[in-house]
């Protein structure tokens, strides 16, 4: 073994741990690999549900942690009042004040309805065309969103919405410094039919 080779071998042994590529800024294409959400044919979209879940500002000790605003009914009616629904949701402010845990601004012409069981409030559209139910809900986001989908599209389609594609059907957005989750479903079944008969295991505090 020559002196040069000895020096090179020792040099390589000592420097080998330093041989690694420096980290750099990368550009990646990251298309979604989630399965697409099933498309409901237009002729079956007879009924529609708009719903918004607003997180409660209370710390929460096992109680309901979501405020739910839900407008559902025949597609034509819901579509007519969609802008009012969105305006109402945009005005919602949750508060940690137990005396007034949530505030909103009623759209023009809307009135507050009478007290109903399992509801925090009922907001009635002009001439009573439809109503927005305000309630409190616990349970996971997925459980609530999937329940509304099944009400419209039937139990046979309960696997269309999965935890994996939840946020392909539910939209997260910021409202007054709080993030809310909003859904817009349409399907062949009337979500309000048989409501009184249908117990809601995920929502013991609210009826929707």
């Amino acid at each position: 073994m020559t002196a040069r080779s000895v020096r090179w071998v020792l040099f390589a042994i000592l420097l080998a741990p330093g041989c690694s590529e420096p980290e750099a800024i990368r550009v990646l294409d990251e298309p979604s690999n989630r399965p697409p959400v099933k498309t409901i044919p237009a002729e079956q979209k007879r009924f529609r549900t708009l719903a918004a879940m607003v997180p409660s500002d209370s710390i929460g000790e096992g109680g309901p942690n979501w405020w739910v605003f839900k407008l559902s009914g025949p597609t034509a009616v819901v579509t007519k009042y969609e802008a009012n629904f969105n305006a109402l949701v945009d005005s919602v402010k949750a508060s940690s004040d137990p005396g007034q845990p949530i505030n909103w601004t009623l759209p023009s012409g809307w009135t507050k309805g009478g007290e109903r069981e399992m509801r925090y409030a009922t907001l009635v559209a002009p001439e009573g065309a439809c109503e927005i139910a305000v309630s409190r809900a616990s349970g996971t986001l997925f459980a609530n969103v999937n329940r509304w989908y099944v009400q419209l599209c039937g139990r046979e389609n309960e696997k269309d919405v999965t935890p994996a594609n939840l946020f392909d059907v539910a939209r997260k957005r910021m409202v007054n410094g709080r993030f809310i989750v909003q859904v817009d479903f349409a399907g062949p079944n009337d979500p309000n039919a048989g409501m009184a008969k249908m117990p809601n295991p995920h929502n013991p505090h609210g009826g929707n």
Partner: protein
Amino acid sequence: MSTTLDAPAGAESPERQPARHTTPVAWKVLRPLASLQLTVVLFSLSMALVFFGTLAQVDKGIWTVVDEYFRSWYVKVPVKLIAMFGWKFFEVPGPEASDPTSPTVWTGWFPLPGGWLLGGVMLANLIAAHLVRFKFSWRRAGIITIHFGVILMMVGELVTGLYAVESRMVLQVGEGTNFIDHSRKVELVFTDAAGQSVTVPQSLLQSSGIISNAQLPVDVEVVEFYKNTDLLPAGGGDDLDGVVRFDGIRFKVVPTSEGTGVKSEREDAAAVRVKFLKKGTSEVLAERLLSLWQYDNYTGRQYLCVLPQVASDGKTYQVQLRNERIVKPYTVELNQFEHKQYTGTTMAKDFASTVHLVDPQTGEDRQVRISMNDPLRHRGETFYQHQTIFGDTGTVLQVVKNPGWLLPYLSCVIVAVGMLAHFGMNLAKFTSRRAA
């Protein structure tokens, strides 16, 4: 690393001597390097390194210690460790006996060679010893075999240290993916609506100054990088600044010390507070705290949040801190997840994930069931069943790639064979001499 079982230092055989006049420089280098005294010093320093590396895990994470003590050239050992050791095991009172960990008391440090340096010199010492002192003969075959096994073990650690990667693949039922998450590195990522991302590596986030790059939509000023954060229930404030929700309950991300080697219940959740600056200016567009708590794959889809956005040149980018993404040439889709429990209890009996593996380059297209002792192996990576995600709606697979995984096993076998040969030959020699 040389041994006293063979020729003592300076007792080189006449056959080795010719090297002296043909390569005098090499001989001058090799002689001191092959020194037995050097071997003893290296072993002593190694024991000290292991001792202080173990003590250091009292207030540092295991991977921090591995990086600082064992995969480094040198280490600054805090004097505090000795004080804590003395206080804990021998009740030696310090200047502040009530709080021996007080940083105000034990602020000094002393240097120690790191693992890379000690290992490298040990390897050189062993090789030099063979070149200078040891005579190659059948009688010494056992010793040579043992030393070869030891060299292989050290090379194995080198390969593991340099090239092994531990990562995770997180999937919900019905979901497919073509990437894994590095377990120990994070990156800041800007993603546009078309799914194109620009990532800033952790090494840049941990350095000071403004990060500016043509690919980035904005300049990034790192205010502070946190190795670990925790969640605290919080009331009011802005949901965009380091806030996550668990089913509506609001939690604030707060910095905390890293999980230590002696007590750590989860992987550290790194975070970074950054200012987004308009490109080429000092105009601050926003300042945000971003944390792994806001990354779905880290939390097992347990927390909800809205990620901040920045706008530049008419495009909107979502910004997130996430584990470093390693893109793969294959896809894995989770078809089914099983979580079996012992009857009448909540004790886990078995976790299993049935996945669909598709690799267009190798032509593989198969369904595989991964369970706790039955991993999937593909392209040199091993997929172990690791955890379940929130609500049992999916799986977390630990993905390990270690090109040197076989070397420790191989080296142990070689060392065992060498020891059997060495002691067997000595025993045979002893019995034959006794019989004579």
